[in-house]
């Protein structure tokens, strides 16, 4: 494979950043089309590894998948370029939206609009819970962990402490069989 130029990598990720609406799943579809099918920088298997890495590392998975691919293509510089490309379009839009939002948020019409949106966001969160739950809560121990953390979270225990705790629980429950 010929090594792609930094500029080319930047442009491809800029395009992904600008047009990939609708969260992780639609973005992954975009990634696959641009990187695997059109540019052939990766094969399907390498791509799914990159997706897994994105899920297993801290931060935004889609950004991490980009960094992993960028690093693979052009080492550290490639990694940096993918972040800038992915983030730049949404940063510009967010600043523009922020400006409009602060200026007009008190207007009655906008308030009504925001009330509707606020309710839909809760619906969105519920559907994320539902989709993830269907996939992940597949054993009695995972249901127990989920419920325990839910109760602790309602009691206002620090969420980072809870994530560390659940990781340790996973190690104790599932780690032994590998040793």
């Amino acid at each position, binding site marked *: 494979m010929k090594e792609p130029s930094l500029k080319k990598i930047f442009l491809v990720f800029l395009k992904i950043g600008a*047009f*990939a*609406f609708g969260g992780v799943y639609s973005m992954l579809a975009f990634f696959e089309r641009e990187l695997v099918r059109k540019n052939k920088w990766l094969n399907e298997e390498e791509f799914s590894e990159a997706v897994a890495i994105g*899920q297993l590392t801290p931060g935004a998975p889609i950004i991490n998948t980009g960094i992993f691919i960028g690093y693979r293509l052009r080492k550290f510089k490639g990694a940096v370029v993918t972040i800038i490309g992915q*983030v730049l379009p949404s940063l510009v839009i967010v600043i523009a939206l*922020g400006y409009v939002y602060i200026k007009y948020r008190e207007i009655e019409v906008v308030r009504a609009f925001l*009330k*509707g949106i606020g309710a839909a966001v*809760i619906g969105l969160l519920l559907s994320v819970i539902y989709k*993830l739950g269907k996939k992940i809560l597949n054993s009695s121990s995972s249901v127990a962990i989920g419920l325990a953390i839910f109760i602790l979270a309602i009691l206002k225990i620090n969420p980072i402490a809870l994530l560390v705790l659940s990781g340790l629980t996973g190690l104790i429950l599932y780690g032994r069989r590998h040793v």
Partner: protein
Amino acid sequence: MFKFFFILFYINLFTIGGGYVMIPLLEKELVEKLHWLSHQEFIEAIAVGQMTPGPLTIMNAFIGYKLFGIAGAVGATISSYLPSLIVVTLISYYYQGFRKSPFVDAAFKGIKPAVIGLLMATAISLGRASFIDLYSIMIAMISFILISFTKIDPTFIILGAGIAGFIIY
């Protein structure tokens, strides 16, 4: 402002699995502990993150803009993605070992259900701010059903809910 950047940096460093995992942590720090945002404003930030292209975590830039202007937005972006850059670069370097570690795998089996528990708690805490009447509960339920069981892009559903809010209120 640097406190804000620091919070984003460590939240991004400690959360694995994406923007939704971050929501409970952000809510805890920015809304409940520091009171920099109301529940309502926080919900609006999630909506913006969802409606713009790119990752949901760009909502951090929106919060940054709201609190500290353009410098806040740019700084929030950098502090959100710097942990990723450091960690993923290191992992790309030591890739094979990390992937095969049974301990990483086992820890994740515990963390994944915990994320669901955290999200449920957040949905309740945010729901208290958003559910002002019967209409808002209906909008939430309809959005839930449409997003879960149809292929409609959530962006359109959130926009549609905004229009519904405009008509109802």
